């Protein structure tokens, strides 16, 4: 190997020497996407009008005029939807990056580990069998029942996978991954059984959970899940240095002074909290957790101190773009967002696999 040539950073690697520039670029891209998401849809609104609407809430009047209808669309429909989409995309991508690190496996993904389908199973069983509960529970709590069922399903799977994976007090990551795959297929089978036994209206609702959608998001859903989505986004990046060392191996991370058992536990708890609540509000949105971390690695390298924040930014952007497409492609109907992310994500991932050797770790 010619060492003189090897010294020159190749391709994308040379941009990594300016990570702060790329990070700023990603931030601006996200901001532009948010703006586009607020403005586009069945009713179009200009950026000026959006600014007027937002600032009028603070008592400041800006020169751009708008109608009541515009305010209603922006404040009650688009804003909660976009904010939730933002957080869901961020937590899915972040959890994907963290799980790939934890399992030391580039294929790990919230859906593969079974937490996503556990959450979806919780929701689906509530839609089909939970009708009886609606009469008993007070009206105020009813909107929370479905998200709670999803969250509970995700949490049960995460705890089960974790229980199976811990042998003699030692967490065995390979066993956990395999247990996740098995539980995933059990959940998928059960969901299939519910779908087989459901009526037309239920079927439409079920599609929402299995293919994902941001359409149901309102402020009433936003605030209860906010802490569950925010805590992982804040907590996981603190584990970045330990995750870096963990890439060298479990023992090696221990030699470098990190508490490996604690790292594994915290990662499991935080990611299942993130994924459970993300599925609870938006169903299973495929591919974000798998593709975004790989994309972030190509842009900024594998160092988790950059990988985790950049996954947050990229994940939010990708979800918002997919949501814009799902809202505007077949107006007045909506495509499930999971269909859009898979349509973009699948081929894109294949292209990456074929063209980028760095992705395969070569």
């Amino acid at each position: 190997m010619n060492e003189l040539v090897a010294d020159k950073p190749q391709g994308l690697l040379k941009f990594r020497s300016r990570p702060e520039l790329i990070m700023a670029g990603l931030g601006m891209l996200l901001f532009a996407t948010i703006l586009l998401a607020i403005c586009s849809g069945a009713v179009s609104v200009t950026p000026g009008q959006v600014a007027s609407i937002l600032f009028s809430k603070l008592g400041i009047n800006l020169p751009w005029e708008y109608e009541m209808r515009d305010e209603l669309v922006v404040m009650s429909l688009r804003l909660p939807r976009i904010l939730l989409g933002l957080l869901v995309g961020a937590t899915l991508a972040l959890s994907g990056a963290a799980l790939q690190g934890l399992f030391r496996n580039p294929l790990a993904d919230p859906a593969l580990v079974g937490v996503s389908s556990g959450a979806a199973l919780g929701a689906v069983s509530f839609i089909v069998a939970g009708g009886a509960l609606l009469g008993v529970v007070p009206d105020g709590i009813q909107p929370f029942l479905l998200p709670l069922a999803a969250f509970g399903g995700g949490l049960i799977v995460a705890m089960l996978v974790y229980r199976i994976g811990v042998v003699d007090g030692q967490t065995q990551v390979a066993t956990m991954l395999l247990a996740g795959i098995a539980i995933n297929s059990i959940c998928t089978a059960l969901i299939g059984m519910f779908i087989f036994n459901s009526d037309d209206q239920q079927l439409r609702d079920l599609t929402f959970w299995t293919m994902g959608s941001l359409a149901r998001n309102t402020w009433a859903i936003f605030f209860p899940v906010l802490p569950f989505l925010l805590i992982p986004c804040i907590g996981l990046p603190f584990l970045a240095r330990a995750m870096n060392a963990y890439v060298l191996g479990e023992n090696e991370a221990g030699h470098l002074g990190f508490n490996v058992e604690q790292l594994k536990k915290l990662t499991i708890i935080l990611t299942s909290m993130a994924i459970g609540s993300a599925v609870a509000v938006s169903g299973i949105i495929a591919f974000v957790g798998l593709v975004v971390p790989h994309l972030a690695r190509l842009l900024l390298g594998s160092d988790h101190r950059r990988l985790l924040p950049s996954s947050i930014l990229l994940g939010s952007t990708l979800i918002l773009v997919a949501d814009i497409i799902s809202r505007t492609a077949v107006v007045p109907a909506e495509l499930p967002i999971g269909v859009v992310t898979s349509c973009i994500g699948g081929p894109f991932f294949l292209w990456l696999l074929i063209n980028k050797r760095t992705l395969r770790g070569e």
Partner: protein
Amino acid sequence: MLSAVDLSFQINNKQLLQDASLDVKPGEVTVILGPNGAGKSTFMKLLCGDLLSSSGFITLDGNSTQSLDRRSMAQRRAMMPQSSNVVFPFSVYEIVMMGRSPYVSGSETLHDQRIVKTAMQCTGVSGLAARNYNTLSGGEQQRVQLARVLTQIWSDGNGVDEAARYLLLDEPVASMDLAHQHETLRIAKQFAQRNAGVLVILHDINLAAMYADRIAIFQSGKIVRQGKPNDVFDQELISKVFGIEVLLSEHPTLGCPLMVSLPRPISDSTNQIDNYQAGVA
């Protein structure tokens, strides 16, 4: 001083190590020799904390290592694994920088960067800094890992008033060419002279004879002999432990012991391949 006192380890009723006692002294290179399955790696895994001993204990300057916290332990004891598989594309520079983890909170300082650069020059991997670790050959990866463990316990001073540090190397030269084998052990020896205790598992008896200050010979989970190279090298003992005839001589220029192995004849009555073919015929 890093000391193992009467260390035993058993798993599934199998005794892998029995009453092994050994001192790793600052300023010295201690080499562990022994056939496969003799308990060398088990012993090192106990010393670096990967395994917990069934009985016996490990002390650092007289204190039990279990009473010390992880981070300060990591600043004084580094372990280089036999091989290290990194799943994601990290650059060589990033891998070596991970050695500074026990000192860093947040991001690395110029001081850390200087140590990493020096350690990389030291092991001859400066030219590979921007390369993806996974694209390197086995020997190059080992040199990168050596640079990483050196940065982990690097000391800037002359080491006189500092606490001694300990470097554990599990077959560090296994995938290296001859020149790099010598280079690695020369680095280990130099490092030892800066108030560090180095413990190395080797398979090459002659390399051990050239670089070791002290040698411990393992057989079936026990330390059967330890001492200075001239004292432990005994033709009969080596033949017995390794199960092969050897001739002991003297290195023509260095004067240290030189071991030549004497293979069994290619065809003899205990040759399984010949017996099998005879059976088939």
